[in-house]
């Protein structure tokens, strides 16, 4: 199932994260109320292992500022939904990757380099050892934590009712070490296998084996965490799995999406409109349920982002189709700068921008996507990862910042399907650029929809762009200057919606295709609309009264037909 709105929550979750243990307990109520008043309908609380572990194997979820039950009662009393993150690496503002120092120090738990040194990552003011998800010792520790937290949460749910969503797994933010060749050389990860070097443009099989081993370890780790949560009382239907980095370069994300909803990070503002658009569109096509983290501020050791820029990045993500999301951070008492609310629960200067965005988010269309698809399937992602040209830099982070799989791998790397990675990337990039310049809704997707409008293997990119522009002409607006905006088309019942997102610093003019397009306020858009830099325009047309798109994905057509049974179609 791809990109349909099949999320478990009936209403989109528009959440703000609150790091309640870092805030005065007396302020919790006011903070939650302030966020609700701004338009958030959910509160997302990460549970930080190192904060709740009173002693080895002894956890506190009830006392003082650690009282999860009191926090969830506050959320419930405010009429809001609750989201709980169990991690183990649940958020990036807590020190030590959220893990107790005893776990960080345990050599049996540490990921290893080729020379069996700890794989350390920046966690200012320290460098800390990354845990090995292959390590039996670490898996025991991590699942014990998730089991304890799940049991505590299940007890609270019995009293206060169920939470809307539970998130397990590491991330979603890119870890600084994720190269398949450099780590993990923990004995539990590789046994007696010798370390290998990245094959670059040589024979790919040894590299692909490394990537698949890495993928299987991540999937097994996540599955073990989900199992620990469900065995201790949490509903499987409400669990989604966090994936570190970007799904576009993660074979594990591709595999996990078959069975789980995913939590993914949106790129930061500096990555640009196209990178954010691309990541969200890809993720929505990948997993049935997707939850995104968008930014408001960051830990102090991240590059700073202005408030208006983080709101602008969230606007792009929503325009691209993000439905359920968490703003990190709604409110935190330490180690986070630029949250929506101050540590005292007062609205920060950019809070009014969030209020406006949340109101606007509720008006965005949902439904079946109409688009020309460019496929970056799991095999391509594995090949790009195996042929990494940036070894040992973190692929997940670079993908999040806008690099495609084809750009991350060495251009000359051979593909099993024939040709090279570079040639494949050139074809995709050329087609994508032409489609964007023509105003055609386009996606890079993980798999072709059956019967969908997809660039065939070996098809000339220019020819595909022309074919797609002709077939989707009914949803292709004229945009001047060419390529100044990205377009998304959505079919919902008898209505077609266009979402046009500016991606340039100058104004653009958008003229919709044909008659009958209306603006959200009800005015007509036929004569064209001026799109301000960074703005998003939504248009709608009643399909019963006007020409239907000449072609769209049969799956979408079938869905519409099913909903419209018995009704006369124009």
């Amino acid at each position, binding site marked *: 199932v791809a990109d349909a709105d099949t999320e478990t929550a009936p209403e989109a979750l528009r959440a703000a994260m609150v790091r309640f243990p870092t805030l005065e307990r007396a302020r919790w109520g006011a903070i939650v109320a302030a966020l609700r008043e701004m338009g958030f309908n959910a509160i997302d609380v990460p549970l930080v292992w190192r904060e709740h572990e009173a002693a080895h194997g002894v956890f506190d979820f009830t006392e003082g500022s650690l009282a999860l039950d009191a926090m969830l009662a506050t959320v419930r009393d405010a009429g809001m939904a609750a989201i709980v993150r169990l991690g183990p690496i649940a958020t990036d503002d807590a*020190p030590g990757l959220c893990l107790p*120092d005893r776990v*960080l120090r345990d050599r049996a738990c540490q990921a290893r*380099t080729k*020379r069996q*040194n700890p*794989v*350390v990552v920046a966690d*200012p*003011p*320290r*460098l800390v050892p990354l845990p090995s998800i292959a390590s039996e010792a670490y898996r025991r520790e991590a699942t014990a934590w998730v089991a304890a937290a799940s049991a505590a949460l299940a007890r609270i749910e019995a009293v206060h009712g169920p939470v809307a969503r539970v998130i397990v797994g590491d991330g979603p933010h890119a870890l600084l*070490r994720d190269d398949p060749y*450099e780590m993990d050389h923990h004995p539990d990860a590789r046994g007696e296998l010798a370390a290998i070097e990245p094959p*670059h443009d040589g024979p790919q099989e040894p590299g692909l084996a490394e990537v698949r081993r890495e993928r299987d370890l991540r999937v097994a780790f996540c599955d073990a965490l989900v199992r620990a949560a469900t065995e201790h009382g949490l509903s499987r239907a409400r669990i989604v799995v966090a994936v570190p980095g970007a799904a576009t370069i993660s074979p594990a994300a591709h595999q996990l999406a078959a069975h789980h909803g995913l939590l993914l990070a949106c790129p930061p*503002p*500096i*990555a*640009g*409109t*196209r990178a*954010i658009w691309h990541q969200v569109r890809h993720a929505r096509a990948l997993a049935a349920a997707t939850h995104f983290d968008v930014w408001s501020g960051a830990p*102090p050791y991240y*590059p*700073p*982002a*202005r*408030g*208006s*820029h*983080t709101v*602008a*990045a969230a606007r*792009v993500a929503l325009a691209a189709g993000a439905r359920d999301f968490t703003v990190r951070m709604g409110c935190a008492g*330490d*180690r*986070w*700068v*630029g949250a929506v609310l101050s*540590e005292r629960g007062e609205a*920060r*200067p*950019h809070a*009014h*921008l969030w209020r406006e965005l949340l109101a606007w988010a509720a008006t965005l269309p949902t439904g079946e996507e109409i688009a020309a698809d460019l496929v970056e399937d799991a095999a391509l992602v594995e090949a790009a990862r195996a042929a990494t*040209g*940036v*070894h*040992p*830099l973190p692929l997940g982070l670079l993908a999040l910042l*806008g*690099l495609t799989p084809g*750009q991350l791998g*060495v251009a000359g790397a051979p593909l099993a399907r024939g040709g090279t990675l570079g040639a494949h990337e050139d074809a995709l990039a050329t087609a994508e650029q032409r489609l964007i310049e023509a105003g055609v809704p386009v996606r890079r997707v993980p798999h072709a929809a059956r019967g969908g409008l997809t660039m065939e293997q070996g098809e000339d990119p220019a020819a595909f762009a022309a074919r797609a522009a002709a077939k989707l002409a009914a949803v292709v607006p004229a945009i001047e200057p060419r390529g100044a905006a990205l377009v998304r088309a959505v079919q919902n019942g008898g209505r077609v919606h266009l979402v046009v997102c*500016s*991606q*340039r*610093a100058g104004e653009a003019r958008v003229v919709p295709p044909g008659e009958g397009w209306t603006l959200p306020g009800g005015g007509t858009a036929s004569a064209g609309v001026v799109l301000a*830099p*960074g703005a998003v325009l939504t248009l709608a047309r009643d399909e019963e009264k006007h020409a239907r798109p000449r072609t769209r994905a049969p799956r979408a057509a079938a869905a519409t037909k099913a909903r419209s049974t018995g009704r006369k179609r124009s």
Partner: protein
Amino acid sequence: VISLDTHITGFDARSWHRLVTLVAPGLSSRAPHEFDARAAEEGGTLLVLYHGERILRAVHTHRGVVAAGAWPGRDDLGALAQAHGARFVLAAEAGAVEELYERIGARVRLDDDLATTVLLALGAARELEDEGQLHLWPRLVDQRIPLPTATVLKRTFDFVLPDGRAALVALFDGDAIDTAVLAIRRGATLERVLGPEVLREVVGPLGGDFRRDYRVIRPAVERAFGPLAFGVFAETATVHALLRDERAGVWAEAIAARDVIMDPMPAWLAMAAGAGVVRAAAARSKGLMAGLGILGALNPTVRRIREVAEAVSGLDVERVLGFNPFRVLAEILRRSSPGDRGDQRTE
């Protein structure tokens, strides 16, 4: 300096952005739709990974992946930077970054403090640079200069901010506090790092002129948090310009002209303000006194500079560290892209 127990609070996104981009303009925030415009600008850093004579990947921090042909060698990195409109180049031979990770992983310990950790990482990077596997262009510090030790850095920290004292930098934009940072030391590390929200709460309404307001701010902060080791009060734009000015003595001139007010002003700060001019003051240089004017010379701050200079003549940060960190910073800032882009107070 900063430990796990250091609490960082009181910064909204704008004030933090203003503070950080003063000294790191390359980290300046951009709206998503400004990506193409930024890519078209000169500046940024080019990251190059090469293997033998082939460049595996070149990534520009503003433009993403860029096409680059053959590895030109260390001596031609300037030309490579110019060809891609970059102001800095960081190049690594295949395997060098992995080797860097190995060395750091082997040496660092979980209990190491920030200074030790940073020095270990810099030391490993310096080794690989010496071995010809890592390259930075331009070279900002002479390779022959050894890194300072953790002990030297600790003593410097003790000197700059003694235990039990606080340090304040309050920067103004017109008639309001633009950004600020208040660091409070308790024991070996900073206990709290507080932003302008806390400062506004402690100080209350201000008159709108930092040359007068500092007299209100300092006692209010000292009542709330203890004695200040030093305080810096100025317009943000003034500090922005001073940080980029490589001329000796510009800080002392700004202090004399009351464009920057330092209150209190410890000895080391007087030296940092411009050792050359301060030494000249100590020697009662006629030229300096003429430059400052009679009123300037009679100014209590200038008298203080002179007194301090006499007391600390011979103390020189360049001599302690082996290089002048302010000159290196100015060189970096001069090469960096413009930082501030006029963010609005409503943000």
